[in-house]
């Protein structure tokens, strides 16, 4: 099962180069920004004491702050939120609803190259 998860991650990273999706509208991105600030920023934001950012920084290569990434895909984001990764726990739908998660994904992929 662990291997299955790793496999999933690999598959997802391969999908990063997959074809573009329909561009989300600006309202959706703004909503996503708000939800991101509420649910993701405390761990993945800028500044001191942000373990999510620190953890990604330790991994290196890509920007550690999620908002600066342009390579995240919507399915990857959803997988991390719904399944967790390392010490990041999964989030329930009473915390981050599917609609909120769509918005977060829209926000974090807003600068992706098509």
């Amino acid at each position, binding site marked *: *099962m*662990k291997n299955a*998860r790793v496999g999933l991650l690999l598959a997802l990273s391969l999908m990063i180069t997959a074809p573009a999706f329909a561009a989300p509208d600006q309202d959706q991105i703004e909503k996503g920004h708000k939800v991101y600030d*509420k649910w993701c920023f*405390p*761990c993945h934001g800028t*500044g*001191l*004491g*942000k*373990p*999510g950012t*620190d*953890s*990604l*920084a*330790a*991994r290196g290569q890509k920007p550690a702050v999620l908002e600066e990434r342009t390579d995240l895909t919507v399915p990857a984001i959803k997988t991390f939120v*719904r399944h*967790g990764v*390392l*010490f*990041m*726990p*999964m*989030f*329930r*739908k*009473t*915390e981050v609803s599917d609609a909120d998660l769509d918005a977060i994904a829209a926000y974090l992929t807003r600068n992706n190259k098509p």
Partner: protein
Amino acid sequence: MRVPPGVSPGDFSDAIKQFQQAIGKEWVFTSDEDVDLYRDSYSPFWHEQEEPIPSAAVAPDGVEQVQAVVKIANHYKIPLWTISTGKNLGYGGSAPLLGGSVVLDLKRMNRVLEVNDKNHYALVEPGVSYFDLYRYIQDKNLKVWIDPPDPGWGSPVGNALERGGGYTPMRDHFDCHCGMEVVLANGDVVRTGMGALPNAKTWQQYKYGFGPYVDGIFSQSNFGVVTKMGFWLFPQPEAYLSGNVMVSRHDDLYALVEVFANLLNSGTVQATTTVVSPLAFGRDPELATLRASGSTKDLEDYVARKNVAYWSVSLPFYGSAKVVAAQWEYAREKFSVIPGVKFQDGASYRFPLDADQLAKITNPVPFGVPSLQTFSIGGSHSQGHMWFSPIIPMTGEAVLEAQQVFDQVFKDLSGAPGVSASFPVWSFFARAFVIIYFFPIEHDVEKNRRNREIFKRLVKTSAERGWGEYRTHTAFMGNISDAYSFNDHALRRLHETMKDALDPNGILAAGKCGIWPKAMRKAKA
């Protein structure tokens, strides 16, 4: 679809249908995908059969919906497991203790009902997080602090009910609550303290009300579902100052702790800190060698040579700028009975902190600002953790004894990865130290099995020494409850008597803190 233990599939699907009618279809989760979101991300049973996974989850939005759910559960004898924000990570997360329970997820009940900055209190629902409450207070520009625990996404209600601790003078979270609303197993709503008085004017100002004070039995228990809770807040103080006290010899610990306890009990120091040996964490290779094989004398020599401390405690002071300076001065005077003691001024702040100041503070929790900084603890590759947290006396003797005893357990079991040989002791609570041992969780069955064995051994050893845990992961609640056994488990038997009377069908949080409903006690026996 998974079915709760002892419930027929037919009954369960009827119950699910009624849950859906009561709270709306979208808030009853039954698909594997949705239900898996309720697994404990930091489960020590990861990839094992024993991992307790719920059968479904229901998320009511309001006390009437909670009542409806509880009544349905009673009718079909469905075991429920209540969570507030579900972020009790390291102690069980959002997963039940009994596999197949239906999680009663109160996250949607996230209203901040009142924040009063004249009498300094808040009334909140269980789904409110420390972040939510902080934001509310900031938005309204109120001059009150909350007291967050290390992780800010948890629930003030949930954390207080688990009897967690924070860092400011309001650090004992259960102690600082005032008034509850509870849905009982029969679906009835009670309000405690002054809340029992209709139109009460002091529900959040006087804890006890009239007659038996029942609030305590809803903490670390399964006697009800708390749907509202009041908290006393700390008005924003003028200033903060910290001062570090360093002593150079091993045996100085006795006097260090004695003076420290006196300062706590006399109200000079009013907040959480930790007594620590910096020697336990230094990265110097020479120090590492001394730690492994050196004598106390060797370590004392090292301390003298390198001009470091054998033990230290950093004292936090809250108050007016002049007062915190005077308190620190008085503390220095008191510690001066220890020959060779050294002092170092620490951080100093005036409140409110502006954005720039706040940005420079890695851990803002001691200033009433919630954070997730604590999750750095396991390093970037951590897959989670759980805590072993025994209460020990606030004496140097106890600290040394605990260190020696627990070190021996680790040695006997040839160590546990990531567990430090030495440890800080914390003053989260007024009078006793609590040790918080970090146990890594891995997605590795063998390592987790081994860690569980070590954990159980620690619980047992701890009990033999007269130390008990203040809180634990659901996986060990039975073990710890077993340890609190005075007079043939008289306390647990009383809890069971009450459980049977208040929740005859045993629907609420079966097994929580060792309390099982009658039917399951019989099955186990």
